């Protein structure tokens, strides 16, 4: 697909650049949101765009166009050349024809494409219906959303690389607002997958409501230091927020706490952190990264020891290592590094056993303010949270909104135990519930 456009760009750029990489990204997306059994929003998207990364005298320049016609594509190349000339960043950059992975991961389901719009709309309606019926304390269902995405990526460079990838997936989420005695709480549940038959509207609707009602009637947390258990999805959120500290680019730019920490102990012994671009069924799974480099499985933290950072070929050259297949860019952004399927390996214990490890444990099931109250550079966080107080392993009470504060690296060192209830969140970050020795709680 798009052979003609790619050829036009290669031909036009030939005498203007040393090397060029072309990235096409397009696809279609559908979302429906339901409110009171009526369609509240219905979106139908077709998108396409081409971006180029050019190399001239060791400097990179970028440009993109959503207008896919000859003149616009030529302008795009000229703009990219101008941008390369304006750059002052001479780096050891190379484009190459990288090999394919041995076994191409399965990232497309033809069957998912057969699911009708009517079925998706009905599914979202059902989620709302089951949520509304689940408990009499429900006020409303602010979100009942079902969506699907099909995306196509093609990447080629002047060294002969030419790779394509077609992916699809469906997702849904439902949130419920409940109240009792002036206390209002929100609960949310979601599912993503390629097998529509695994989407369970009843379970999702009921879980969202239960997550909210469980929190009702909380008491104020007494401020102080507590052992804290983060539920699996909240542990995912924290890992997601701080995943950037593992970026080699952040390390080189002095923006990572992990600078100079290679082969050093940065976490408790039970902590293994992995990035796996080939994780079966993962939603960031892909055969190649944004440089066309083959995806791989990378152990970042092994028994608490930092083994490597995320690399693309440029950061890898600087450090004298190989790329870890974590190059990332969209047509409108420059080349960087980012995780794929990024996870904290699960442990063997039940969450219940973790909660019984201390006289008092605060279990956190909701965190807000991750984009503002967490500083990915310093690792400091102070977040608004909701959860429960456990005493001697028994649920004592739910808690009113409180804050939890600490530092991400300190927290990794203080992880006492990890449960077995592993799951991925919507951003392809995975974790089980984890118990942290102590964190500051303020009620």
């Amino acid at each position, binding site marked *: 697909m798009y052979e003609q456009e790619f050829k036009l760009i290669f031909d036009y750029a030939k005498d203007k650049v040393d090397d060029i990489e072309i990235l096409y990204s397009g696809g279609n997306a559908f979302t429906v949101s339901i409110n009171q059994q009526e369609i509240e929003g219905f979106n139908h998207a077709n998108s396409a765009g081409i971006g180029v990364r050019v190399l001239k005298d060791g400097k990179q320049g970028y440009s993109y166009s959503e207008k896919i016609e000859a003149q616009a594509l030529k302008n795009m190349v000229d703009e990219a050349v101008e941008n390369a000339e*304006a750059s002052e960043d001479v780096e050891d950059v190379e484009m190459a024809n990288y090999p394919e992975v041995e076994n191409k991961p399965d990232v497309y389901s033809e069957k998912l494409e057969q699911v009708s719009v009517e079925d998706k709309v009905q599914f979202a309606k059902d989620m709302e219906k089951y949520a509304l019926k689940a408990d009499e304390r429900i006020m409303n269902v602010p979100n009942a959303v079902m969506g699907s995405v099909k995306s196509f990526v093609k990447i080629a460079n002047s060294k002969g690389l030419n790779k394509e990838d077609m992916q699809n997936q469906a997702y849904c989420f439902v949130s419920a607002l409940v109240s009792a005695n002036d206390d209002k709480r929100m609960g949310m549940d979601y599912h993503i997958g390629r097998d529509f038959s695994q989407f369970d509207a009843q379970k999702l609707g009921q879980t969202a409501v239960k997550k909210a009602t469980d929190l009702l009637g909380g008491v104020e947390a007494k401020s102080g230091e507590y052992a804290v258990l983060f539920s699996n999805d909240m542990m995912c959120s924290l890992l997601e927020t701080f995943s950037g500290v593992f970026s080699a680019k952040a390390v080189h730019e002095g923006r990572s706490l992990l600078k100079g920490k290679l082969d050093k102990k940065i976490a408790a012994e039970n902590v293994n952190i992995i990035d796996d671009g080939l994780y079966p069924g993962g939603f960031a799974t892909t055969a190649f990264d944004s440089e066309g480099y083959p995806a791989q499985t990378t152990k970042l933290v092994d028994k608490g020891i930092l083994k490597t950072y995320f690399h693309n070929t440029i950061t890898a050259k600087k450090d004298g290592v190989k790329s870890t297949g974590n190059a990332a860019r969209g047509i409108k952004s420059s080349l960087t590094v980012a995780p794929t399927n990024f996870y904290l390996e699960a442990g063997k214990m039940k969450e219940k056993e973790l909660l019984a490890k201390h006289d008092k444990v605060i279990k956190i099931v909701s965190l807000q303010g991750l984009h503002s109250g967490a500083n990915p550079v310093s690792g400091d966080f102070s977040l608004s949270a909701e959860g429960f107080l456990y005493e001697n392993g028994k649920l004592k009470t739910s808690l009113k909104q409180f804050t939890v504060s600490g530092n991400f690296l300190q927290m990794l060192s203080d992880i006492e135990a990890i449960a077995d209830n592993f799951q991925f969140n919507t951003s392809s970050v995975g974790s089980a519930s984890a118990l942290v020795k102590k964190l500051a709680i303020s009620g």
Partner: protein
Amino acid sequence: MITKQVAERVLDKALSNGAEFAEIFVENTYNSLISFNDNKTKQCLAGNDFGAGIRVFYGHTAIYGFTNDVSEATLLKVAAAVSKAAKGKSKVKVQDFTKLEFENKHEIKIPNNTVAKSDKIDFIKRINKAARDYNDQIVQVHISLTEKMQDVLIVNSEGLWAEDSRNYSRVYASSLASNGKEIQTGTEGPGGFAGYEFFQNIDPEELGSKTAKIAVTMLNADYAPSGKFPVVIDNGFGGVIFHEACGHALETTSVAKNASVFAGKMGEKIANSVVTAIDDGTIPNQWGSENIDDEGMPTQKTVLIENGILKSYIVDKMGSLKTGYKRTGSGRRQSYRFAPASRMRNTYIAPGKHKLKDLIADVDYGIYAAKMGGGSVMPGTGNFNFAVSEGYLIRNGKIAEPVRGATLIGNGAEALLKISKVADNLAMAQGMCGSVSGSVPTNVGQAAILIDEIVVGGRK
């Protein structure tokens, strides 16, 4: 961008299944980003966003579709797809187009694409130098300069034909201070609904050293205490409290669903009587201003709260249909990829009559938040959180030592009632506000306010 004949045929197709309303939004945007780090211009990226979105209404249901291809054939295809999403009984026909005339309140003196990249890079380098010269604890400075020139065409079945050109300029500077063990950041991000002249009116040395000062101050600060305290939140980005905790809950997106604590409260007292809050899209060349909103309605100055009484919501076209309140010219979207929704523009708490020092003098022991970071809110519950990026303790009515790592949490409706004093030093600050219709430029603002009691989450 498209002809009247094409527009008419596409709208006609969009209405063909009995929809009451159809609209086309076409956009042609030039985006440019220069990113500077490590004493070097690291990346220059520019490109062209181009596409069209088609929206139809069936009762209170909005259907939206978009495409990058604005050929008649593709637009008709998208129109057919959105029209088939529902069925209506309306027999509405496309009205003859009348070009919307409006006064241009936001003059663009120097279009950004007429200025050489080298001039822009020189400006960036002056900021970088000033930040690094401030103190040897500054280890890194990151600066980005973003420019956006957006041409829009909004056409609808009611006969609207509206065209406008928008020009945004913003520079974002972030200084990192380190003592070898820890890192703290200081950031500023001034921006305007203006051309390149916006940058010429900024003192780059002042901007650079300001970010460095915050980073160094916070690096050498102790952790904030935890507990309930009175808090003085200073002007400018301090207005994020109102934006997050109240502004979002006044958007008809949440009001119409009854998902807002302020639903059904029109004319009632929702804030302390010292509070008057305004959302104004008309202030010349301000970051959140526009001549017309993304539904083609001229923007206006909307008084949201007057002396504590709720006077208006923030209303878009669909919000108006759902709630019965008049549109306020607040239908906004990030791009053609989003259906418009009710959004804030330049939102601020109007100045009172006190001096900042009077507010501080009222507090025996509490927090002075000189500069706020970002935050978020759950519209249903009104619970909010936001970070203090430059904070100090107040002891015996005087600003004392700096503190870091503080987060303020509370409830929007309760906090509004606890604002007991408002100072006279109104200022605005720029942000990108994310919501259902994407990320749009908004100003937050206020004069300094005293909140009698709020939960501070610190580390001590």
